[in-house]
């Protein structure tokens, strides 16, 4: 449950998102951090909105977070998502947000702010995508 039925299409990768998808290939969930003021940001963007520095570095995240919102898209069917997939907004424990899927749990068993952990699934062209499931323990 929760997974796409076939390998998902490769993401469209830009100069500003390449670091995220390259890390995901290594099964690392990363975010961008300002190299000057140290503040994390998500989604990626070239300039720090706090100090306007364009110097940036990558931080490996814990992969732990909690579920802020969660829904099941039914219609129109999204190509590659013919089965049930739960879309969620995840509050990562580092204080940033990420849209992802919640897997390995039925929709009705999800509760607000439920703890989740990241795992990775192959995409086309050798990419991998970060997905979430209920946190172990």
């Amino acid at each position, binding site marked *: 449950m929760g997974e796409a039925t076939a390998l998902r299409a490769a993401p469209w990768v830009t100069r500003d998102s390449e670091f995220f998808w390259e890390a995901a290939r290594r099964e690392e969930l990363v975010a961008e951090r300002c190299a000057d003021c140290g503040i994390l940001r998500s989604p990626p963007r070239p300039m720090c909105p706090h100090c306007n520095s364009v110097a940036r570095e990558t931080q490996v995240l814990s992969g732990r977070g909690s579920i802020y*919102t969660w829904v099941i*898209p*039914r219609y129109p069917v*999204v190509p590659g998502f013919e089965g049930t*997939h739960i879309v969620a*907004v995840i509050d990562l424990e580092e204080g940033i947000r*990420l*849209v992802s*899927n919640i897997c390995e749990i039925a929709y009705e068993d999800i509760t607000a702010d439920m703890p989740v952990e990241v795992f990775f699934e192959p995409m086309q062209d050798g990419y991998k*995508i970060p997905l979430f499931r209920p946190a172990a323990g």
Partner: protein
Amino acid sequence: MGKLDQVAVAGIGATEFSKNSGRSEIQLAAECVKAALDDAGLTPQDVDGMLTFTIDNNEDVALVRNLGVKALRYASRIPHGGGGSGGSLVHAAGAIVAGLADVVVVWRAMNERSEYRFGQANTGRPAPGGGATNMEWTIPWGAATPACWQSMVSQRYMHEFGVTNRDLAEISILMRKHAVNNPEAFGYQKPISIDDHQNSKWIIEPILRLLDCCQESDGGQAFVLTSLERARDLKQPPVRITAGAQYVPYPVDAITNFYQDDFTDMVTTRGMAQQLYEQSGTGPQDIQVAMLYDHFTPIVLQHLEAWGFCKRGEAMEFIRDGHCELDGSLPVNTHGGLIGEAYIHGLNSAAEAVRQVRGTAINQIAGVEHAAFSSGLTGVIFGRV
């Protein structure tokens, strides 16, 4: 106080709203603008300014060539997708106040049902200008439609305040009820019941069913704005731009809007409405009728709260108590809204606000001094002169 109140809507015009217009988008644009000029008693030769949405496919110069406009002194476009629809009128008014143009036409014309499908899944990189800047961070996870993106926000509101999809049926029923005697509406003579709503298919479970969504539409809607002074001498009673505002706080996005702290508070609209009230010295109690951008039912709740028509978390109860009915304290979407009439990206609801101030609406509310139009990130208070 603001200065926009020296500007008036002098004309409104539209094509029919349909699922298949059978003609090009530029033809729809030219027809609706000509209709608005006819309504105002002006001609294309009077036009010297034009404004539309960034995502409108029609070029200003193409419209100039169709209408035979003598010369443009001003042309501009507004971002934020439908969230910018109120802003198109605000910026047109601003151009007139600044002396950049005397007569500005505002339009939105599209075949977003017959030529392309606005509600279908996006699978690739979007064209720029739509205001959904975070699509690359949603599409790989199968979150690919406006209905999905809106639901990802509304779900938290509904969770916090105990609103269910069955509750949303009451909003859909109300919009369709208001559309029943509107011959321009998809919902003309087609009221719906709770059963109809609950039997319609899930679009985004458990938030939106089919009958919670506006319908993809073909059509065009236009406005003519000019100075209040000039509008007084024209064909229609002028409708004042009492106030107009835009508010897009960090880090808000028009619809892929997942990075603000609290999804239950529509901070865009709250800040926008506050500016409107400050510009005009009015408050929620001074608005007699409201047109709220209802691409999907749950957003109506958040508009009501952000404008201060009711307290946070109480909008469902406010609707259930009958306040938004035609005989209520604040009739909402008296033409049927985007759900009941058609989805011309918000501008058809702004036109209804103008009709309510003129006194010519199908479901005319008595004694309208101020009519509100809220498109979320932008909005207008229209006033009687």
